[in-house]
């Protein structure tokens, strides 16, 4: 069996509007600049937005895989030459949000030939605790849970982790605290979430790091450019870069485990 080198990472949050897509995009951009080819997948099926953040209007998307004979390699868009590829999803298609296990398996059968080209697979998941979000999150090697200091963001991400751990047996999560005013707020936010997980769910998530509140972030969204390209020295860009470095280290330490298994693991029968 061919050895797998691709690390799959899902970015999730429970609550919408906490910066998931932007984080997935910029972490991906960091990897690309570091010389690691990656595929950024818009897995917010039905309400896709990454194309907007990238300032592109892709002709095809994952929906085409389900209703035509198209090859996944023809759907992927090259954002930057040399290994920054993007797989768009459809917007306004409610059927995709409610994908069942059979349809998911079909989608991933078609996507698998594409995956091996990359070092990283970033999956930007939708908000909510839909079966699609749960199944995708359970399948990846690494789960990045994005929270903001807002109480509703805390409860939503906690609820998501609770469902994933009780229903899918997933108990390892990396937390990213986004939009924190300062280090102190970042600490409080993470510690509250970690303490509740420890107390009620029986596991402690790991803090991957924080991203400071930075007015250049909305600016990069308006300009439809990755923050790390537009303002690489801004505070949030530096934080994102630090997170990317940590993920690379993680990739190194997980090397053995990844090599033995598939790109995505079948947890609780969600993937074939």
């Amino acid at each position, binding site marked *: 069996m061919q050895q797998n080198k691709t690390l799959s990472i899902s970015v999730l949050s429970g609550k919408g509007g906490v910066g998931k897509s932007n984080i997935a995009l910029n972490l991906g951009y960091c990897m690309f600049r570091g010389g690691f080819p990656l595929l950024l997948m818009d897995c917010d099926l039905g309400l896709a937005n990454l194309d907007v953040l990238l300032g592109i209007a892709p002709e095809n998307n994952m929906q085409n895989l389900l209703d035509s004979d198209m090859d996944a390699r023809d759907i992927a868009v090259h954002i930057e030459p040399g290994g920054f590829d993007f797989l768009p999803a459809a917007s306004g298609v409610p059927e995709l949000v409610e994908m069942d296990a059979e349809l998911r398996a079909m989608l991933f059968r078609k996507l698998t030939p594409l995956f091996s080209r990359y070092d990283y697979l970033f999956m930007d998941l939708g908000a909510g605790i839909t079966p699609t979000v749960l199944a995708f999150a359970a399948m990846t090697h690494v789960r990045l849970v994005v929270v903001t200091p807002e*109480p509703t963001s805390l409860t939503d991400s906690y609820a998501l982790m609770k469902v994933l751990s009780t229903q899918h047996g997933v108990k390892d999560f990396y937390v990213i605290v986004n939009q924190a005013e300062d280090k102190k707020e970042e600490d409080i936010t993470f510690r509250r979430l970690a*303490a*509740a997980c420890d107390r009620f769910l029986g596991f402690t998530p790991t803090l991957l790091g924080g991203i400071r509140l930075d007015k250049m972030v909305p600016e990069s969204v308006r300009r439809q450019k990755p923050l790390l390209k537009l303002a690489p020295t801004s505070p949030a860009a530096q934080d994102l870069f630090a997170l990317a470095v940590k993920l690379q280290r993680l990739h190194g330490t997980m090397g053995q485990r990844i090599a033995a298994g598939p790109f995505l693991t079948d947890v609780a029968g969600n993937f074939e």
Partner: protein
Amino acid sequence: MRKTNDDTTAEATSDQRTAIPEDMRDLTVELEALQQLLLQHSAAQSDNNAGGSSAPAGLVAITRLFPGMSIEQWRALAESHGLHEWLALSLDKSSFLNLRHLQRALEELAHQSEHDPLTGLVNRRAFERRLHMEAERVERSNGNVCLAVLDIDNFKQVNDTYGHPCGDEVLCGLSGVLEETKRAYDVAARLGGEEFALLLPGATPLRAKSMVERVLHAFGQHHFACEGHAPFACTFSGGVACLRGNDSLGIAQLMELADQALYEAKRAGKNRIHIARQRQEIEYDRSTMVHSNEKQFLFSGIE
């Protein structure tokens, strides 16, 4: 007459389809239903005969008169609907008239046996047949169907106060509202006396309740003016019970549940719809639910 079926579902070209006049649509629907039924029958027959010696073969001709159709038109119809195994016979004037008379009599009898003469709604017998068909469909397709049983409030009082002809007007009034308000594929029936029923395929209990409440509202707007009396309005009470594909409820139990819900609606003060208390067969997983003490802990660190 019908011979062996080789399952030819003819793909009709669009111009052949357009060759069928509008007024023959009903006939094609009827033919398709009959074809389906005969297909099921012949499948059941061959199941029964499997392994056995040759069964005594019956021979039956199924005849349906259709005035106003020429042999040429039938040919076009047979072509477009894959009815090649059906035989069409042209009738001369005298035999046609006699047979037509017979057919009319049959149609009238068939209608009478399935409909309530006063309101024109289907009667209990026909309703129960539809209910059985619907229950079978629900089981096959794992869908659901709701049954609503309605009973006009204080109907005896209406009869006593305003007289029986006026009572009949109220009964016809409700049947009119039912016909107007229901969806095309719902079935409205008069079960007897002042008791009516509505069969709502595909409806969930809450949806069924709101649909029947719409009927109740429309009925309440109706004012009956009977000779020598001031106009008055009537209400009814209703009980709703539902059948889901995965539950083991029988028709009799479904009727009983709807009747119980109706009784409760009457006891609660009439002029309302109650949903039967049925065991929820699908239970959701409570283990994933976030409880208030967990939220409390998230926000304050204290339980």
